[in-house]
């Protein structure tokens, strides 16, 4: 057996082969022969080494373990002479550490304007002094020392601030209703029961800048005449609950909460109440029932909470982000706030950007920005530069909007018109490999699960919708299903008791409207265009690309793959359960979905 002092491994995955890996191998062998080293150094083929998009073709030299990348055949003579003859590593060919930092990753994302999030990631949320240094509680002092409750409500009304929970009701007007109600006790409630999948705006505000919410609530209490407040936060946010409790304790110590605030005779106190994980408790009437200790179910309105809320007393409910905007409006004035946004939707809005977008995370942008700017400028575009297919706004009650809506300005009215909603600010971006029927089914599964069951249209309707959608995804769709879905959507929307039921059909209705051809392909051609629905796809091995390495056969959980070593393998579609493991483990991209 020959003994080699050194081995050169060359990556020959398809990507590197395209970039000339075989030419590199030939050049290496030629040069090693020319230098008389061919008996000492062995050239071997291997699968992927580095990231081919960045490096290919690359080689690793053992025993040193040096990784060279981006080579061309012309580089080889020099490399062989330097490294193998003279034993010097050629620095200029070495693979560079992958840079995660690129141009577009500079400062806060372009087009962002931070109002609600100005302190997030800057101050220490557990230190009230840090908040005070950023003008914290100055708005409260201003309100208590030289504004009447009417002036406060007027300022908030003039700013044009609308409910950030998604309904978009004018906050100042809501406060006015509650102020007009006569009662011996009034309550302030903050809705922090953020349950939309892929939305986490409120969590971040509560964890990173809790005092801004507390301050906003105290100001609201002063304007309305309330003495007690509750923050209803879901128990799935333990850190937010902990941070809030610390913040409330500190606010009490400093005298911003409790009796005789800032020596003005005004008294108000706050408590955190935890929700037990029901999505419907984000609906205001269900939320109040839950705080009272009853079962979290919505009730018909009127009476509205502003007239009869918690324990039958006038109650004002706003979302976390709505309250967090208030101190800024008081300090900088209504005109400043109204100068941002559109004619009817003022100010900024935070969105949770999730899904197939490069920079996921939280953003805050002025209302009126287009979806395109959010996806491409702020989010950096679609992951792996794939094509854009749809964007879902407003959580599971929102609709999926296709590419023709990319230039739609984001505000309450435009989104509603397009068949979606603002919601609390979830945004899920989907690329071309998403199956819209499957997505509609996914959201339906969620709403069906979370339907509280009080009213029939929602309880039974969502179940029927889900059954039909599941059938379609399983390839058992029939003629007439589309019409049935449309009819159901219509009835559920008009007859349900609360927002959950009224919004539940949105994902289905919007995909039916904008991606009808996908439903048709599933039902009439038994085909899933995005190659997602398992029942409608088959995994196949391309014989030309398969090297017979047996990795797929060894990893197949149901032994559906057969083949001789070094011969193309085959998948038996009758045994295959379409788990996709073979595709993940194949180093040669020889497995495709049809």
């Amino acid at each position, binding site marked *: 057996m020959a003994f080699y002092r050194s081995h050169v491994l060359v990556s020959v995955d398809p990507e590197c082969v395209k970039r000339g890996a075989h030419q590199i191998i030939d050049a290496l062998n030629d040069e090693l022969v020319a230098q008389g080293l061919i008996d000492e150094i062995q050239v071997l083929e291997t699968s992927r080494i580095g990231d081919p998009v960045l490096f290919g073709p690359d080689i690793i030299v053992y025993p040193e373990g040096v990784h060279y990348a981006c080579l061309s055949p012309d580089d080889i003579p020099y490399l062989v002479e330097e490294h193998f003859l003279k034993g010097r590593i050629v620095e200029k060919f070495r693979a560079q*550490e992958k*840079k*995660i*930092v690129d141009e577009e*990753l*500079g*400062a*806060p994302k372009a087009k962002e304007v931070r109002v609600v*999030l100005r302190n*997030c*990631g*800057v*101050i*220490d*949320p*557990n230190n009230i*002094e*840090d908040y*005070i*240094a950023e*003008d*914290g*509680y*100055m708005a409260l*002092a*201003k309100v208590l*020392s030289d504004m009447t409750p009417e002036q406060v409500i007027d300022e908030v009304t003039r700013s044009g601030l609308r409910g950030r929970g998604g309904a978009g009701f004018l906050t100042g007007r809501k406060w006015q209703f509650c102020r007009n109600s006569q009662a011996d006790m009034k309550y302030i409630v903050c809705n922090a029961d953020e349950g939309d999948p892929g939305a*986490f705006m409120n*969590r*971040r505000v509560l*964890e*990173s*800048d809790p005092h801004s919410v507390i301050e906003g609530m105290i100001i609201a209490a002063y304007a309305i005449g309330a003495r007690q407040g509750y923050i209803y936060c879901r128990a799935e*946010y333990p*850190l*937010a609950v902990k*941070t809030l409790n610390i913040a409330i304790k500190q606010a009490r*110590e*400093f*005298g*911003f909460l409790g009796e005789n605030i*800032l*020596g003005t005779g005004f008294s108000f106190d706050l408590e955190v109440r935890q929700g037990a994980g029901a999505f419907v408790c984000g609906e205001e009437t269900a939320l109040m029932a839950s705080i009272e200790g009853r079962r979290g179910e919505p009730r018909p309105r009127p009476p509205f909470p502003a007239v009869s809320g918690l324990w039958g007393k006038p109650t004002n409910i706003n979302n976390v982000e709505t309250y967090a905007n208030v101190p800024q409006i008081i300090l900088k004035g209504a005109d400043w706030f109204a100068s941002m946004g559109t004619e009817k939707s003022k100010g900024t809005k935070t969105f949770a950007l999730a899904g197939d977008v*490069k*920079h*996921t*995370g*939280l*953003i*805050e942008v002025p209302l009126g920005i287009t979806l395109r700017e959010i996806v491409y400028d702020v989010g950096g575009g679609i992951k792996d530069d794939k094509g854009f297919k749809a964007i879902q706004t407003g959580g599971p009650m929102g609709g999926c909007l296709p590419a023709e809506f990319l230039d739609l300005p984001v505000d309450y009215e435009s989104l509603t018109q397009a068949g979606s909603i603002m919601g609390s600010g979830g945004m899920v971006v989907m690329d071309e490999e998403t199956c819209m029927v499957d997505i509609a089914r996914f959201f339906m599964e969620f709403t069906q699960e979370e339907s509280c069951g009080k009213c029939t249209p929602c309880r039974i309707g969502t179940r029927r919708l889900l059954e039909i959608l599941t059938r379609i995804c399983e390839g058992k769709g029939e003629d007439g299903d589309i019409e049935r879905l449309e009819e159901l959507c219509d009835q559920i929307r008009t007859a349900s008791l609360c927002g959950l039921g009224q919004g539940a059909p949105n994902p289905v209705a919007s995909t039916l409207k904008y991606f009808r051809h996908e439903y048709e392909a599933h039902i009439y051609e038994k085909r899933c265009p995005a190659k997602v629905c398992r029942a409608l796809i088959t995994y196949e091995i391309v014989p030309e690309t398969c090297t017979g390495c047996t990795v797929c056969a060894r990893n197949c959980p149901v032994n559906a793959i057969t083949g001789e070593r070094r011969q193309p393998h085959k998948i038996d579609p009758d045994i295959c359960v379409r788990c996709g493991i073979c595709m993940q483990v194949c180093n040669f991209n020889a497995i495709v979905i049809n």
Partner: protein
Amino acid sequence: MDRVKSLEDLKKLREQALEKRKLKTASGEVQIIVGMGTVGIAAGARETLKAILEFIEKENLSGITVRQTGNIGWDSYEPIVQVVIGDQPKVTYGKVTPDVAIRIMKEHVLNGQVVKDFMLEG
């Protein structure tokens, strides 16, 4: 802490808080700020914070405060660590694993060389 009883009290308090901040930067103190929101923790910020504290202890360094903050919003780059040395502008780093944190401590905090590979802004 005495309760804040008036607007004047609050203004004084704010001045004091700002003064404290100024002192920190004027004295050339190093502040290391770790994002410890849910997203940061899920991405491994606890391990990063531990590595930083252990490094400070092992090297017996003084004049460094390590504090926490919430989420800055660039979730795909968590764990995020910010370094402020004296009155120099703040440098923000992304994807700071414990190894990267040690690199930042050695190169940036001790030698004043920004670790460019992981810098988000600065």
